[in-house]
């Protein structure tokens, strides 16, 4: 499932990072950075509204919905045969060959988590501190039968959340620990760019 675009929106709705990958760059060439700002703030408000209008039924039987996202091994990690798995951990302040290895519960209990259309699928990962990571992937889910789609949907969602949590880990390393970055401002760090490119390339 190829990731086409990555957006990061801060807790007040401002766009702090957006990047297109692969051939998406041409497709979205006509979108100016201003358009992206608009997209980001509309997404922010959609997420907020969707949080409010969750159907009563969903809210009532809250506890039997399982919000744990299983760990999908190797999402965004270089395949094991890659040449330079030097002994030095390449994961900054994270030890081992992957950012995390266990399943985790999603903080996003009632808002929008995934939007799949016939053009693209959008995954949203929101943190406790209000930071929103949005990945738009070009892979479109086959619509053949009910059972099939819901299973694919679930897998895609898991991969999406695993991927975005890893982006969150990279963000916490290369943006939060960068002395020249001030909070809520757009991210200018090349280290972060490089790591995200690597991650997206490996998800292909």
């Amino acid at each position, binding site marked *: 499932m190829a990731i086409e675009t990555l957006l990061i929106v801060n807790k007040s709705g401002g766009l702090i990072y957006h990047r297109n990958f692969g051939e998406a760059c041409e497709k979205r060439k006509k979108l100016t950075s201003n358009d992206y700002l608009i997209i980001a703030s509309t997404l922010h408000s959609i997420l907020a509204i969707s949080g409010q209008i969750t159907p009563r039924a969903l809210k009532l039987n809250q506890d039997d919905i399982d919000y744990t996202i299983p760990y999908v091994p190797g999402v965004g990690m270089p395949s094991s045969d890659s040449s*330079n798995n030097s002994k030095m951990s390449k994961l900054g302040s994270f030890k081992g060959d992957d950012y995390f290895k266990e399943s985790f519960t999603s903080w996003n209990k009632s808002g929008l988590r995934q939007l799949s259309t016939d053009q693209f699928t959008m995954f949203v990962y929101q943190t406790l501190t209000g930071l929103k990571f949005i990945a738009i992937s070009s892979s479109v889910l086959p619509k053949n039968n009910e059972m099939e789609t819901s299973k694919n949907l679930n897998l895609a969602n898991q991969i999406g959340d695993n991927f975005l949590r890893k982006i969150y880990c990279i963000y916490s390393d290369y943006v939060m620990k960068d002395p020249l970055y001030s909070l809520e401002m757009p991210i200018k760090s090349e280290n972060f760019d490089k790591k995200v490119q690597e991650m997206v390339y490996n998800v292909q």
Partner: protein
Amino acid sequence: MSTDNIIYPSTSDDSFKRPNHGYDYTKGAKSHTTIESSSINYPTKIYNDSLVANRKEVSLSSMAFLFQQMIIHFHKDSKTVHEFEEKLLTNGFQIGSKLLELLNFRSSINPTNSSRTSTFLSSNTNLPTPKMQSQTSYDTTSGNSSIPSNNAVISKTTTQNTISNQEAASTSHYSSIANTINKMKRRDLKILDILQFIHGTLWSYLFNHVSDDLVKSSERNNEYMIIDNNPVLTQFINNNIKNSCNYFMCGIINGFLNNAAFICKVTPHRMPTENSDERIVYLIKFDSQVLERENLRFSS
């Protein structure tokens, strides 16, 4: 002009500046100290704690965040890049000069007698009441700690975290290790000796691995280079000020060498190669006086 380099007349009594119990350079050597009799019980921690390495670790994130705050603090205070680098250099210098003494002293403690640190059971009793406990000893080979059974051990009050299989946490006690050292480590007199010490012991102390290379430059004989393929402290910093932040590490090396009477200048240079693009070369330029001494004394 900061106040502390005003020469105070010896009669001034701003006692907080110069407590009258310890050594007072304006009065010279005293043959006995008033404190022995007086009941002032100065809280002391550093003279009670042991110098033996306790091999404790913190997460790299905490160090990275602290380093980040130091960079921000210095960056906002200094108007030019040079001033910013100078500040990092002087701070690293402080750490380097301390580590020179600490690491050399620790390498004088051979592992065998570090496991039986003797408690300085001083005969006279008017020691300020240190908590008389012997340090729970740990031998460097096996992980578990063997607690000596001598009688001086009183219950371990401070650290109650379970010492499962990591080394025993060293409790604070009054211990001195110096009397168990029968041969202090040699003072390094030659350039190569002290650089080997930096390449090996200092780097493993700081980053758990020896530095990636120690090279003598071919063109000028007063230049040596220490190579670090991926510097740990500045890995999260972006290229615009990354190299300036490496001056902190240069300060540590500089402090280490200058205090050992090897006057030099240390500068960081980023020289990426194909498999390590964060590679940093610390160029050490020794003063001519050091080379002269080297030729005069050790050219035999």
